[in-house]
């Protein structure tokens, strides 16, 4: 066995989520531990096996009694830390599990926050589900159902985003991209390529293709790549297979997103040569 950090065996390696004690091993995040124990924490930019990302913020949980005025505090948080000292918001997918953490997850307040964040994702892009091939198989949609989202709440931002249909078998419709970077990571970490990247800044951030022309056709993306299949929404689609499974018989017509184990754990981890 590799050297384990010395620890007091009296302190068990467990965290508590909504009152349920959950074991974890060193190196696991809160999300890892929760999923392993069958506890669902809503997530969009996370996929077991890929490097945690922490961008969608759907997995936001509260840790109680965490000492905020520690080294972790950035300058701007300091000012507000005194009032919020009794609970701190963290991303479950990136926060390492630490013995004794008291975590709140499935609470009405947190689910409300998550619903608002989901609404932000809907209105910042163009999500017209009735016309989307991914409907029924879409994790964004399924999470929205899970959270009881009825509408986008905010005004639509209706951005104009570019569609890239240049590739023989894969289409990229940026209207539905939620910038989760799953494709970016899958391409680098699993496929051993580097097909995608995020470019731009702020609300103008967008997915680009890492090829001289910026087109998918000129990239080395292949249909067999993980990156061609991992998109949680209908932004990267395999051409001509969209309606093989009829609406009504699709993943989230038959399952709920909160059922653990729907997403394959990515086992083959090939590191990109650049890293």
């Amino acid at each position, binding site marked *: 066995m590799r050297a384990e950090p010395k620890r007091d065996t009296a302190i068990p390696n467990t965290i508590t989520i909504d009152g349920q004690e959950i074991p974890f091993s060193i190196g696991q995040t809160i999300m890892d531990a929760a999923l392993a124990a069958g506890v669902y924490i809503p997530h969009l930019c996370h996929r077991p096996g890929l490097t945690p990302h922490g961008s969608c913020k759907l997995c936001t949980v509260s840790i109680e009694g965490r000492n905020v005025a520690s080294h972790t505090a950035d300058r701007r948080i300091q000012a507000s830390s005194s009032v*919020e000292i009794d609970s701190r918001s963290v991303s479950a997918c990136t926060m390492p599990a630490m013995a004794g953490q008291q975590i709140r997850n499935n609470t009405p307040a947190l689910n409300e926050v998550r619903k608002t*964040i989901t609404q932000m994702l809907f*209105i910042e892009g163009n999500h017209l589900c009735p016309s989307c091939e991914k409907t029924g198989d879409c994790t964004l949609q399924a999470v929205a159902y899970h959270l009881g989202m009825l509408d986008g709440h905010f005004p639509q931002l209706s951005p104009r985003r570019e569609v890239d249909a240049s590739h023989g078998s894969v289409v990229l419709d940026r209207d539905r991209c939620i910038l989760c970077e799953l494709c970016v990571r899958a391409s680098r970490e699993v496929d051993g390529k580097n097909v995608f990247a995020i470019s731009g800044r702020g609300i103008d951030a967008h997915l680009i293709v890492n090829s001289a022309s910026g087109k998918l056709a000129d990239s080395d993306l292949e249909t067999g790549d993980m990156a061609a299949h991992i998109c949680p929404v209908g932004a990267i689609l395999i051409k001509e297979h969209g309606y093989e499974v009829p609406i009504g018989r699709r993943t989230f017509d038959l399952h709920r997103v909160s059922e653990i184990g729907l997403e394959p754990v990515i086992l083959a981890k090939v590191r990109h040569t650049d890293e």
Partner: protein
Amino acid sequence: MKHKPAVNSSHAYSIDHECSIDQIRSVIAQNRSDHLLHILHALQQQLLHIPHRAVAEVASHLNLPVGQVESVVEFYSFFHNIPRGRYNILLSNCTSCGYMAGGKNLLQLLCQLLGVVAGRTRADGLVSVDQTSCVGMCDHGAAMLVNDRPIIRLDSGRIERIAALVNAAVPLEGWPEEWFDVDDNIRSSGLLLKDDLVAGDGLHAMIARGADATLDEITRSGLRGRGGAGFSTGMKWQFCREAPGDAHYVVCNADEGEPGTFKDRILLHSYADEVFEGMTVCARVIGSGQGLLYLRGEYRYLLPQLQAVLARRRELGLLGRNILGQPGFNFEIEIVVGAGAYICGEESALIESLEGKRGVPRNRPPFPVTHGYLGRPTVVNNVETFSAAAHIALRGSAWFSATGTGKSAGSKILSVSGDCAAPGIYEYPFGVTIQQVLEDCAAKDVQAVQVGGPSGTLIGKAEFGRKLGFEDLPTGGSFMVFGQERDLLAVAVNFAHFFAHESCGFCTPCRVGTTLLKNGVDKIAGGHGTHYDVDELKRLGALIKRRSHCGLGQTAANHLLDVIQRFPQVIEQRLAHSEFEPYFNLDAALEEARRITHRNDAAAHLE
């Protein structure tokens, strides 16, 4: 007449503006630095943009993915993929040094005089005019950057002369020299600004004392980070020193992007030796051979001078190999210049930028002290922090902690700007009251003070007795005074636009939320807000604050929540007297159709 539907393409590189590949290659080859930001800057400067084919050239030159180069070009405000004018003019839009500072819209005036639309290059390619976030000239009135050089104290007269010089294509060398003179404006000095520390004295003292004891002194002095977070500098150095790694790095954060902050500009301009000396002390303590100073692009004009100071220090044996004759005490400092991105002041985004990437904050843990630049243990400190460290190395911890308060030892350098007779640099012992500062800068009829910049706290008269310090009102140094005449809602609009513009776009709450906040404040300022909108903004603000990934998002709503809470009448008096107002202007939404159909009848309008 037949029109082809315009190609619906957001792809930026549809046209390549006659730049030959040889031109591109020669710019790349001549550039002395291999830092991506520097190469891109050289291209931008010489070709006035970064043509698409240059992206691939740079990528192959540096052996980087094309996507990385392209994404960097599109991230930083100072890089463009369509040409800017040969005179590239950027007016600050800060509430203190912005184009509205004198009450007149100088941006509009300049555009008019030059016949340009803001943000677009004039057809003859001579000039482009645009706005940019605070350029750190807040003590000098309205300011602009012309081809990277600041011009201060703008008023209509100066704008008219500038327009004439541009139209006559007079090279910058022929413009009045004094326009470019940016002086320090030090109004009161304390521990750090009082006397110049003689270059090398701090290092001599450290060597005499030993690295361990010096670290002890830094820790015992109670010095806390001056960038704002206020983390113990001694502890940070200690963590970094203890972290395993084949290299350790010292990084000086000179990004100074918080609107209303300009004290690092003065330290870099007139006290650069102290800053470099502090970095060198740190290097010795943590065992680092390489330092980096990340200079904001707006301060590029300071670069030659800073390079000169570094060169002198090398000559004096204060930098380089075997510093002060100590075998194995090797340390070099490199300067990396940013390109217009406030987020790059956040330490982990800064490190990403140093590594030639978009400035996106990392996940923490791990922290820079263990996994920083190139994944190695790294200390990131503010300019002022390093300056203080140099002084402490020389004079000891007691000298420092004798000033200030219990939790906030030492002094704080404030950048005072806005509605006061004597804007400038004021160094105070921590614990000074707001009232005292206001008296010293001769501010009359003060309505409010923005402490710590837009990300800080907005306070009104009732709170002027409060004290600056980590116990009460922390500040990175920005101190903006708003007189009775100021429209605080206009200020809120300004700040909301700032955050939406500067959000890096990584996390959902800030990426989408700052834009929604901006739209919401605009709606209220436009007279179309209702109580419902105010409630919405409060709810949204709370979410952005609590759920965002980094300090930018976590503070982006502060200013607005402060106005709503402390100055409710400012909002109230602008609200529409209805329960609900549309989110967009209905009549304006018909304008395009009116133009296409040439209709203007009553039915072609909406109330």
